[in-house]
């Protein structure tokens, strides 16, 4: 009886902690010193965006479109790889090589059905653009095996200061199999050289059977990633289940715990795991309860927004705002909504000239203007 009561009490407590629907830890400022301007109108689901040296943009739409936006005109780039368009799959992130000016390489992640099995998995490709079409396409990595599970493909692409390319693949709907197993794809952050070869000092190069492109593991579904402008570290955010979205700083060979430890519960309110920490597993830098469904992320490193310098920006798909996080002494000290009720924020990036660009589903890409 006591046991029954204890477990009942436990469930009540857990429900009280996780079942809450409102986010009580975020602030909604009454007045903000900014305005927004719609720059790229009429986009469906703009997943990736990046800025070319001439100030024009490359934008991906999940359904498989790559758009070059220049002087107010959208040009669709041809010869884009065919995407496995099921559920959350599609054309995802786009990023330039750090030396794009000289070599012209552009990197993409997308869901691909290449391979023998039915279904799809996430691939990393690089290519160049000539006459509004992709040429010299090279598949640098392809997650395997394919699966018809429609969710958790990831994905973002980031280059670090040494020129390595990082990208993530979500657990591909098989969380008890993939994320904790380094011989399997899915639930990982990968690190490659720019040509797709494996760096000799990748953490698992000497492990028999390991996927040697893996840099860290135990991830659920990473859909935000950025380089810290000062430390050069790779920061990542990922979707938790119900509660338990995380911000992590990615470190070589580390295990981020999914699904063994987690601050969230299953969608049907059942317990996924009772553990939130374990030796050998990293604690998140920050975690969200309730989930915000985090998308793109970026640090404000320019002087365009004096009050916000050094802040982290993260989009919320679920609550439809962009949030700004103050970070002091390695801790999140304050969160506030920017652009509340603006729609499903899919991505945020800083342009070459230091402005914040925000991509919103069904609307387009906005620029945030300081209006002081």
């Amino acid at each position, binding site marked *: 009886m006591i046991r029954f009561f204890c477990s009942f009490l436990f469930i009540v407590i857990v429900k009280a902690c996780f079942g809450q*629907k409102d986010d009580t830890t975020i602030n909604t400022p009454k007045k903000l010193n900014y305005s927004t301007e719609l720059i790229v109108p009429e986009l*469906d*689901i703009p997943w990736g965006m990046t800025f070319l040296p001439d100030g024009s943009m490359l934008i991906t739409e*999940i*359904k498989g479109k790559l758009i070059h936006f220049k002087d107010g005109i959208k040009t669709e780039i041809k010869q884009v790889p065919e995407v496995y*368009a*099921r*559920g959350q*799959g599609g054309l995802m992130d786009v990023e330039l090589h750090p030396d794009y000016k000289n070599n012209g390489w552009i990197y993409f992640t997308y869901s691909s059905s290449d391979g023998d099995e039915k279904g799809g998995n996430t691939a990393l490709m690089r290519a160049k653009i000539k006459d509004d079409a992709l040429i010299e396409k090279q598949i640098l990595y392809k997650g395997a095996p394919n699966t018809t*599970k*429609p*969710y958790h493909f990831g994905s973002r692409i980031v280059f670090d200061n040494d020129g390595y390319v990082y990208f993530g693949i979500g657990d591909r*709907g098989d969380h008890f199999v993939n994320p904790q197993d380094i011989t399997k794809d899915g639930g990982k952050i990968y690190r490659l050289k720019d040509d797709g070869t494996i760096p000799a000092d990748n953490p698992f190069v000497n492990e028999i059977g390991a996927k040697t492109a893996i840099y860290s593991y135990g991830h659920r579904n990473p859909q935000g990633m950025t380089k810290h402008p000062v430390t050069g570290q790779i920061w990542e955010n990922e979707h938790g289940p119900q509660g338990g979205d995380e911000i992590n700083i990615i470190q070589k060979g580390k295990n981020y715990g999914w699904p063994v430890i987690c601050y969230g519960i299953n*969608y*049907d*309110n059942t317990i996924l795991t009772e553990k939130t920490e374990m030796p050998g597993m990293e604690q998140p830098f920050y975690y969200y309860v309730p989930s915000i469904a985090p998308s793109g992320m970026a640090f404000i490193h320019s002087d365009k927004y004096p009050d916000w310098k050094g802040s982290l920006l993260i989009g919320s798909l*679920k*609550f*439809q705002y962009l949030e700004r996080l103050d970070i002091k002494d390695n801790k999140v000290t304050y969160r506030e909504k920017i652009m509340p009720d603006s*729609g*499903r924020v899919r991505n945020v990036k800083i342009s070459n000239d230091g402005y914040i660009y925000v991509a919103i*589903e*069904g609307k387009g890409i906005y620029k945030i203007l300081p209006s002081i």
Partner: protein
Amino acid sequence: MNQIKRLAVLFIFFTGFSFIQDEELSKSMAKGKDVYNDFCMVCHKPNGEGTEKIFPPLAKSDFLKKYRDESIRSVKYGQKGKIKVNGIEYNGNMPLPGLSEEEIVDVMNYILNSWGNKSDKIVTIREVKSLIK
């Protein structure tokens, strides 16, 4: 006597028919539940309750009842723009789920007959095929 026989035959025929249809529906719903859990549950929630003003409810939804074709179309092609469900306005963007026609049939049969919803007519491949953008 003949009349009674005829009636009996008709009775057996119809109850048999509805039994076959019930079984067809429950099979389709079982498959539809898996599709629902994979594609729809994250936003529309395990019991179809949705999230007010963000993700419209499917449980006891007047929209599903009134606009059956539109509902199936949104699963087939995605949905964008303003809709009103149970008196509350939603202005979302549901991405194209990318389901096969058979999966659309199953998930619609599941949604239309769960959480207090009840549909008189089973969704068929033919119906899904006939609905174009």
